């Protein structure tokens, strides 16, 4: 238990450091960094509070507290992945609509240019 808790605590700290570094270098936007920082903080707190750990394991009906910790960690990251799927889907839709709009506008500009040139020639 101690070793697993320590590993998760170190992992959480590394994750927090990595995400904060990425935010500082503007590789991740602040609003999306929350999706990582919050779960990492929850995992850190959980790995350091054994009482809380045992209470959650009991609530889940598990006698094995490390397993409870892993289940909660997995559930948290599934929620994070779900949130990113929503964001990516939304971005893809917006991107497709924008690309179509750009293509249509270019088409219309070219058509207008040709009409102007034809009018200038005549």
């Amino acid at each position: 238990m101690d070793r697993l808790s320590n590993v998760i605590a170190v992992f959480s700290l590394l994750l927090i450091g990595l995400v904060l570094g990425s935010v500082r270098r503007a590789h991740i936007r602040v609003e999306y960094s929350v999706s990582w920082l919050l779960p990492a903080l929850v995992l850190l707190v959980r790995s350091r509070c054994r009482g809380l750990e045992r209470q959650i394991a009991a609530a889940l009906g598990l006698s094995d507290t490390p397993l409870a910790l892993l289940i909660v960690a997995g559930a948290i990251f599934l929620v994070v992945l779900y949130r990113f799927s929503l964001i990516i889907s939304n971005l893809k839709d917006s991107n497709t609509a924008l690309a179509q709009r750009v293509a249509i506008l270019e088409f219309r500009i070219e058509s207008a240019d040709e009409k102007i040139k034809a009018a200038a020639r005549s």
Partner: protein
Amino acid sequence: MILIPAYNEEGAVGSVVAEVRAAMPDVAVLVVDDCSEDATCEVARQAGATVLSMPHHLGLGGCVQAGYRLAFELGYDYVIRVDGDGQHDPRDVPKILDALEREGCEMVIGSRFIEGGGEYSGFLRGLGIVFFRAILRPILGKPVLDPTSGFVGVNRTALGLFSRSFPLEYPEIEALVVLQRKRFRFVEVPCRMRPRLAGRTSITAVKSLYYIAHVLLGVFVNILKFEGRRK
């Protein structure tokens, strides 16, 4: 308007445009180039088509929807889609247009399985067609013989719908369910299908399985959006 989606079809698109112009001399021909890496765009222009160029590769659905959007904005009443690989015989375009005008339905499908049509289809595609016929029969409330056919014509009502909402990856089958959701009607007319004029198909066994899973999910999601059965 005749809409020809094309991606890396420099070997076929010129002939397709020429055949379409021969079959329908007074109709606008729009090639939607899905950011091809070859000379599709130039070949299409040389053949006499106007070209709508995508700024990056969108896939078939996104590409076709862009054409529908433009046609809708330009006020066209009918749009007939002909694939840029030459598998659809442009001599059947008048048949589709005639059916659109005569039947007053929202969509006409060029079918290779109606008497008078051509039966060219690959083995995998043939299996997929049989499978999706069975799936779609209860959903649509009537049989559809060629659900994977991209040789389709739509009227302005369907054009308005598709310019707002169109499946982005594998559009043919899902588009039927989208139509059904809005209680629109479709008919099938016999059309000839040919082997592609140039290039190679990108369909592999793995892609076919992905296609089936993707389309099944898309159909299911569209059923969840149903607003009620057609009366």
